[in-house]
């Protein structure tokens, strides 16, 4: 936390507390002037604290073994794997199209982007062209999913730090996005909304109008969240200067997504290695220089605004057309290997696919952003207080379904 008082009000507050403490000391002169520090009292220097796996602020089943000195964190040892379901093994036992529903269960609050990454890997292996309409709809689904994922992040990490109100606003908008998905593919969370070579369904009548209306409203709604948090003194005290990491260190740790961009590295796979039709779209990659929890919050909020812009542009470009490319009935790619990745809401989500010429992948490996980003938590948390750890788990935005696979 920053030690600098942020405003005049805060300075006044500090003076008030100092005076009150003095007054209390005067009222009870018999009280001991200074209590001895806890660790000398009980002759304990360090202790181990088990944090999770059942703990509301771990966003799932993450267990952390902390070594603490009072409230100060000396060491964090993450223990993951409670949600391991052997997804990569399952991919090997089923045909390529049958693998897509499994990807829904990885990052289960951003299923569309998972579907997309899986399909991209297989399409790269097959060398299939995706029709333009399918590309645009895929990008719309991706960006809606990014907004909804960031809204979940905003709501839950706000609650972690005591800001309960934004949660209700964020989930109000997310609900609308889930309704759009439900209307499109029938599911709200585990979408299975993309197929190898394109899309399963065309859009329902009126869907684009409803999305368009929502997108028009969104910037004003984001202003509402920002009004609750961006200049909020408590929010700033809990986030500014917490978990600072430099751009070079981010790269060394393999951190991607908003975490990397909040540390001043302007790198987004949608720009660096454009897939689908991102090349022609006009959007900004938001970056911040501070690399702390507050900057990561700002980057995510800005990303939501940019996503809204992207959806708007795609809606304007939509024209009737094919939604599925020329894909063979039985998908049997050549015996080769490819790696394809997309910019998921949490960072680089990649699929490494090895084919042996049959209709099932010989090996399908997921490069999950949450897993790699979580690795840097001990580095971020060192020297902070236990309550800041809650902020840090929130700020790297993990989903345990993806960490454990």
């Amino acid at each position, binding site marked *: 936390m920053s030690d600098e008082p942020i405003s005049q009000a805060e300075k006044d507050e500090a003076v008030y507390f100092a005076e009150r403490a003095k007054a209390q000391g005067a009222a009870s002169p018999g009280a001991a002037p200074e209590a001895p520090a806890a660790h000398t009292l009980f002759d304990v220097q360090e202790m181990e604290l088990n944090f999770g796996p059942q703990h509301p602020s771990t966003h799932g089943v993450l267990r952390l073994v902390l070594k603490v000195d009072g409230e100060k964190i000396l060491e964090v040892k993450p223990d993951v794997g409670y949600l391991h379901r052997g997804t990569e093994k399952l991919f090997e036992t089923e045909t390529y199209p049958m693998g897509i529903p499994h990807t829904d269960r990885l990052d289960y609050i951003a299923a569309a982007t998972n579907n997309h990454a899986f399909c991209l890997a297989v399409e790269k292996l097959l060398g299939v062209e995706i029709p333009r309409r399918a590309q645009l709809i895929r990008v719309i689904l991706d960006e809606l999913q990014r907004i909804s994922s960031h809204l979940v992040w905003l709501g839950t990490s706000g609650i972690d730090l005591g800001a309960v109100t934004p949660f209700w606003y964020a989930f109000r908008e997310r609900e609308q996005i889930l309704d759009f998905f439900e209307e499109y593919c029938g599911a709200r969370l585990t979408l299975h909304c993309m197929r190898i070579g394109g899309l399963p369904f065309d859009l329902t009548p009126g869907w684009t109008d409803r999305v368009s209306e929502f997108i028009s409203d969104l910037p004003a709604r984001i202003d509402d969240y920002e009004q609750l948090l961006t200049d909020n003194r408590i929010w700033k005290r809990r986030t500014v200067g917490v978990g600072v990491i430099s751009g070079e260190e981010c790269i060394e740790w393999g951190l991607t997504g908003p975490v990397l961009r909040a540390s001043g590295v302007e790198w987004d796979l949608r720009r660096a*290695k454009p897939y689908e039709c991102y090349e022609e779209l006009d959007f900004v990659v938001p970056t911040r220089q501070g690399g702390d929890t507050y900057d990561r919050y700002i980057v995510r909020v800005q990303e939501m605004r940019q996503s809204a812009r992207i959806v708007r542009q795609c809606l304007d470009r939509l024209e009737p057309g094919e939604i599925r490319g*020329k894909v*063979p*009935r*039985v998908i049997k790619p050549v015996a080769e290997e490819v790696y394809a990745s997309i910019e998921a809401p949490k960072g680089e989500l990649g699929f490494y696919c090895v084919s042996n010429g049959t209709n099932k992948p010989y090996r399908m490996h997921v490069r999950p952003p949450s897993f790699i980003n979580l*690795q840097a938590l001990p580095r971020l948390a060192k020297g902070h207080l236990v309550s800041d750890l809650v902020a840090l788990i929130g700020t790297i935005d993990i989903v345990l379904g993806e960490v*454990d696979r």
Partner: protein
Amino acid sequence: MAEEEQTPGAEKPREAARPVKREATDASGHPWVRSIRAAMPDAVVSAKEFAGEVTVVVARESIARVARHLKDAEDFKYCVDVTAVDWKTREPRFELVYHLYSFSKNDRIRVKCGAADGEEVPSIAGVYLAANWCERETYDMFGIRFSGHPDLRRILTWDGFNGYPLRKDFPLEGIDTGAAIYPEEWPEGGGPPKNDPNRRFVP
């Protein structure tokens, strides 16, 4: 697609059938491959390019030095991923796969090396911090040990788990984990019996 596969021939096949078969091309002349070869003459075994991705196969002993060279000389600063493939019948059995990315080149390179069952692979966790958990996962899933790794423990399964789930000879429905719940139906120690027809393996 899944529905179509279940009913082959139920409807007229799509026109303009299969995409053109593409093949990997030799990439020995690629600048990155030449750079590795210049620094370590014996390291490179082969190199290929497929779908715009360069793959270099190097000797197992030199993998950490190759990673160091690529990071320092060729600016591959970001270790995307480390994983392995179990080739079951091939020699050597395992293939380690490393994906590295360069921000200045805006491109990835895939480095691979072989490892027989029980052979140790030099760890690249000293070169890239990001490789730490990836190598732990590879050890956990395939049983490949990394020499020089700072903390080589299981990560997704628990300590004391017996077996390596992503090996092809690991049965699909799991193995004895020491929890025999129905001893009259299942053999001692749990898990399906060896002659169970339902005991499946990944092809």
